[in-house]
């Protein structure tokens, strides 16, 4: 059915084109007849013009029709004896040269039109190709960014996993020594006449093992605390803006819009800028991840800074994500607790310990299927504003 309609409209358009050709030739004829009265025969010059015009505007087929009609008209009206179809032999060269001129004009215009058409076509193809390549490039870029993020995440998890494995091995080894030696002590003491030197040696080794285990723990702790946090005045609004810049790409990819509501008179706090940025980044990343499955409402992330008193500022990160079961909230800040399939559950415990090391507080309010808001407070840098 649509084919039929397309055919019909094509036929109509073709008919129209032929009609235009006829009209142009007719106009040429009328003009020639009118001008023949004052200027005589040479007014048939209108016909080549009509052929050119018809071929140009109406196309090749109508052009041929124009050639044909013009030739007939010239023969009938402008070659003596006028208004008859009689062609005297001496007029044949003129008639023939007119016909040839008409055909040449027609051909030239048709050739020019064809060239233009193919040029246009080539341009359209080029544009389509460029658009296609651009979208391919964009897709590849997105995939690349996704892969990079995934890679970073895996690297982080792998690092933590390896760290945990090596820590547990390092601690387990001396503990195994403690157990073996304590067992040996007990075994010797169970004998009727225990060899006390053996008992003493085993007890001694148990002590050494326990000491080694606690040394391992101390070493890990010093590793974590390495580079004790700097205490410098930090403008949290700046930190927030920098963090928003960092996370923009991730937000856009996840169709999350970020709004900042920053208190322009926010006093600086005293602390380690890098650590505080880590906390904000972590909270924002969590917020975005909490919204990735939300489809029935807009995904909005709002980060707000405000001075709640002269001595304290509060930063809030609010999302419209899946929210959390109130029963889960108490465990939220415990190490290795996670609600995500791929989470490692270290982000919030680390964030909380950072905030607490800054004499602040980190807590959460959450409603299932509405979203969560994480708040942290920090004391204002006192006296240093001088």
């Amino acid at each position, binding site marked *: 059915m649509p084919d039929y309609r397309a055919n019909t409209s094509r036929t109509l358009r073709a008919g129209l084109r032929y009609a235009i050709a006829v009209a142009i030739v007719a106009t040429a004829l009328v003009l020639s007849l009118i001008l023949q009265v004052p200027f005589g025969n040479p007014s048939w010059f209108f016909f080549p013009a009509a052929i050119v015009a018809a071929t140009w505007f109406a196309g090749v087929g109508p052009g041929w029709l124009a050639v044909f009609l013009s030739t007939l008209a010239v023969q009938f009206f402008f070659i003596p004896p006028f208004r008859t179809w009689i062609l005297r032999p001496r007029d044949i060269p003129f008639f023939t040269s007119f016909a040839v001129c008409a055909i040449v004009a027609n051909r030239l215009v048709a050739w020019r039109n064809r060239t233009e058409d193919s040029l246009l076509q080539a341009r359209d193809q080029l544009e389509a190709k460029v658009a296609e390549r651009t979208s391919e490039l964009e897709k590849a870029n997105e995939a690349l960014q996704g892969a990079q993020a995934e890679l970073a995440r895996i690297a982080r998890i792998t690092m933590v996993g390896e760290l945990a494995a090596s820590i*547990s091995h390092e601690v387990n080894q001396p503990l195994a020594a403690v157990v073996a030696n304590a067992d040996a002590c007990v075994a010797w003491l169970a004998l009727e006449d225990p060899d006390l030197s053996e008992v003493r040696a*085993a007890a001694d*080794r148990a002590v050494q093992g326990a000491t080694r285990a606690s040394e391992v723990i101390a070493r890990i702790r010093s590793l974590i605390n390495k580079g004790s946090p700097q205490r410098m005045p930090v403008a949290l609004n700046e930190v927030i803006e920098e963090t928003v810049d960092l996370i923009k790409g991730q937000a856009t990819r996840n169709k999350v819009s970020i709004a900042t509501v920053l208190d322009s008179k926010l006093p600086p706090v005293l602390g380690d800028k890098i650590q505080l940025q880590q906390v904000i980044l972590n909270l924002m990343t969590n917020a975005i991840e909490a919204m990735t499955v939300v489809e029935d409402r807009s995904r909005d992330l709002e980060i707000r800074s405000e001075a709640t008193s002269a001595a304290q500022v509060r930063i809030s990160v609010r999302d419209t994500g899946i929210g959390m079961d109130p029963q889960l909230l108490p465990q939220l800040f415990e190490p290795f607790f996670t609600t995500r399939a791929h989470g490692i559950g270290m982000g919030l415990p680390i964030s909380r310990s950072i905030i607490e090391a800054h004499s602040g507080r980190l807590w959460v309010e959450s409603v299932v299927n509405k979203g969560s808001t994480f708040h942290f407070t920090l004391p204002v840098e006192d006296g240093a504003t001088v």
Partner: protein
Amino acid sequence: MNEAEPIVYIIDDDPLIRGGIQSLVKSIGLRAVTFGSASEFLAAKRPDVASCLVLDVRMPGQSGLDLHRQLVEANVHTPVIFITGHGDIPMSVQAMKQGASEFLTKPVRGQDLLDAVQTAIVHDREFRKDWIELESMRSRFDSLTPREVEVLNLVVAGLLNKQIADELGTSELTIKTHRAHVMEKTKAESLAHLVRMAERLKARAHRQG
């Protein structure tokens, strides 16, 4: 100490664990010899007595599994008790496939280890007794002449003297003499005993072959 007393070899790179296990083993009256690595163990001279190995899976240099494989390949049948830091399933499967007698995870409970050690020593003692018996049996069978071996094979196959004589193209009397020699040389108490010994030797040759 009596040379025939069994020995427990303890191979662990951690001196505290080594010392603990050694003390534990000594407390039940067994000899315990410790080594810090697989190569130390391989270089040491080992008396020919019942023994077992307590082996840490993860050691710097040659791992416990490597050492075990090497021992199996060298036809050393000392039972091995593995100790590992984590319940590493693929590793324990491999160890069991190689014929480890026990696989314990750190920290090992003293009693578990002692039980494993005692079981392993009992196994090794039996294995060694068996082996010594087989060896003497084999040397006895090796002393047979080719003709006697032929007769032995046919006897074991269940043929009567007359049939054997026909088979070998000789007189029944000659076969009787050969047969008496076979019984005497192999110290067989009866035909049934002879057949059992021959079967055991054959089975062993098969296993090693």
